[in-house]
């Protein structure tokens, strides 16, 4: 009301007017006040309606392995539970006793405002990603929970990628084949030690020299810095120290291959290690490489060689796809040609 009074005083001072004009101004100010009040009343009404809706929802809690699915009791909830159970069955053997580390992880497909206390729950929502179906949404939930439970050094090493048992090795192959890094090229050519360096399992060196040559570092600066920036000059004049400083200002050189390839290595190690391999990641170990070797139950070199073999198997083979396609295409062509010959010429009228 103090504000209303001040506005009234201001208006009255600005426009000394007749009694009728003053009455009109007062009416307008009253109406403004009423609008504000009605808006506040409307908000309060919405709040109470939302609260009533929250109370009306019958929540159902379903336990699926280590997960707790908390959702309204609907048919959708039952299908979400089925999808998570199906995906968890693929991961449960690998997780072994490590499942206890994610015990009680809450999953929900309801919007967060339905129950504020579960804001940290894993979201199961096939709709969020458009075409993503229930199975993929369940994969996201299970993989996210397992990733969050990882030892922090392994989680950091993954560069934001999630634990998976179905890595995209084709993409990793592409990444390795096109990486502008001497260690990645050596890894591509089958050098196991170079793969260990490329995957960031050992220190790349203070100046990232185990990953990149000075020329390769300069090329990275040229890519990451705008031409008008001072740091860009090092790419042209070949001042290696200046390039190193530029990269340090950019929080370091980018690894030759990203998190997807690293997640692929972890997936291979978990697969090789079999039941309980996930739990073995938590055994005391000096570094990530040792953890991975421990999980796989073999030496790191063997794990890396196996991973490289998987990448070679996943190499995109354009010719093979066409040959497969050709065989089936001939079969379908014959069927369609047969269909076409069954039409009749007698169609007049």
């Amino acid at each position, binding site marked *: 009301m103090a504000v209303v009074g001040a506005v009234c005083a201001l208006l009255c001072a600005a426009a000394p007017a007749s009694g009728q004009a003053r009455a009109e101004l007062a009416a307008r100010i009253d109406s403004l006040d009423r609008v504000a009040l009605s808006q506040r009343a409307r908000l309060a009404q919405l709040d109470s309606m939302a609260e009533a809706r929250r109370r009306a929802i019958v929540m159902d809690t379903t336990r699926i392995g280590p997960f707790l699915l908390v959702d309204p009791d609907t*048919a*959708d909830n*039952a*299908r979400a539970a089925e999808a998570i159970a199906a995906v968890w069955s693929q991961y449960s053997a690998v997780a072994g006793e490590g499942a206890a580390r994610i015990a009680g992880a809450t999953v929900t497909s309801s919007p967060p405002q339905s129950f504020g206390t579960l804001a940290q729950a894993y979201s199961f929502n096939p709709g969020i990603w458009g075409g993503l179906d229930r199975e993929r949404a369940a994969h996201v939930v299970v993989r996210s929970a397992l990733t969050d439970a990882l030892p922090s050094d392994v989680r950091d090493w993954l560069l934001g990628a999630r634990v998976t048992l179905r890595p995209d090795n084709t993409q990793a*192959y*592409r*990444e390795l*084949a*096109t*990486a*502008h890094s001497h260690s990645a090229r050596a890894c*591509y050519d089958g050098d196991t030690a170079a793969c260990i360096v490329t995957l960031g399992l050992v220190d790349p060196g203070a100046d990232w020299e185990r990953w990149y040559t000075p020329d*390769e570092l300069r*090329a*990275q600066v*040229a*890519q990451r810095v705008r031409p008008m920036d001072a740091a860009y000059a090092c790419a042209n004049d070949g001042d290696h120290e200046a390039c190193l400083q530029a990269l340090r200002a950019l929080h370091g050189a980018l690894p030759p291959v990203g998190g997807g390839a690293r997640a692929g290595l972890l997936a291979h190690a978990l697969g090789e290690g079999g039941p309980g391999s996930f739990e073995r990641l938590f055994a005391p170990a000096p570094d990530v490489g040792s953890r991975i070797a421990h999980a796989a139950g073999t030496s790191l070199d063997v794990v890396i060689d196996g991973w490289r073999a998987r990448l070679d198997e996943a*190499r*995109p083979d*354009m*010719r093979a*796809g*066409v040959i*497969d*396609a*050709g065989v*089936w*295409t001939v*079969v*379908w*062509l014959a069927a*369609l*040609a047969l*269909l*076409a*010959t069954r*039409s*009749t*010429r007698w*169609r*007049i009228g």
Partner: protein
Amino acid sequence: MRSEMTQMLRLQWQSSRWLLLVLAVICIGLPQASVRLALWVGGDDVLASGRLLAQLGSTSGLYPFLAAITGALVALTAWNWDHRTGHVYALSLPVSRTQYALLKLWAGAVVMLVPVLAIWAGAWIATAMTTLPSGLRAYPFAFGARFLLAALLVYATVFALASGTIRTTLIVTGVFCVLFIGGSIAVPWIESQFGVDLISPTQVLGEAFTSWPGPFRVFGGSWLLIDV
């Protein structure tokens, strides 16, 4: 028989030559345009491989579309003058309907080699005139073969559809659309009402495009002209 094949080929050529010319120009130009665009966007520095692949991937969706258009248009031109003249011409020929349809199928497939050879040439020229970044290879032959198979499949499908009357074609297409749209709406509703899992038309179509022996699996593969 040879003269009948020649006559049918000549007839097919006459009815579709301008269309084939346009398609050939597009087919020879598109691979070159997409490779040039990828090089322009990706840059010519040593780190360009990844960007080049990403850019080529973003335009690779045009090729299956072009293959489908090529196959469909050639199939439609094959039956166009039959439909226009009420199939009188076919009735006047001393060949069986089966033989007539096969001759027509053969003639259409042969003239479709014009755009297919054009895209092959376009892909070959585009990659031969480009210095690829390290780690990348060109696959113009496999790319052209994929285009040929995809175009042939659509050609045969539309040819079979168009071999009937326009009414039959419309009925078949209409029933397919109704089943697809109706099914896409009905299946989720039935699933949510009765708590059952059904196969939706979208899934069936998806399978046809992504797995053997789905007829359109060739469309689901990689259409990259350049890859690792």
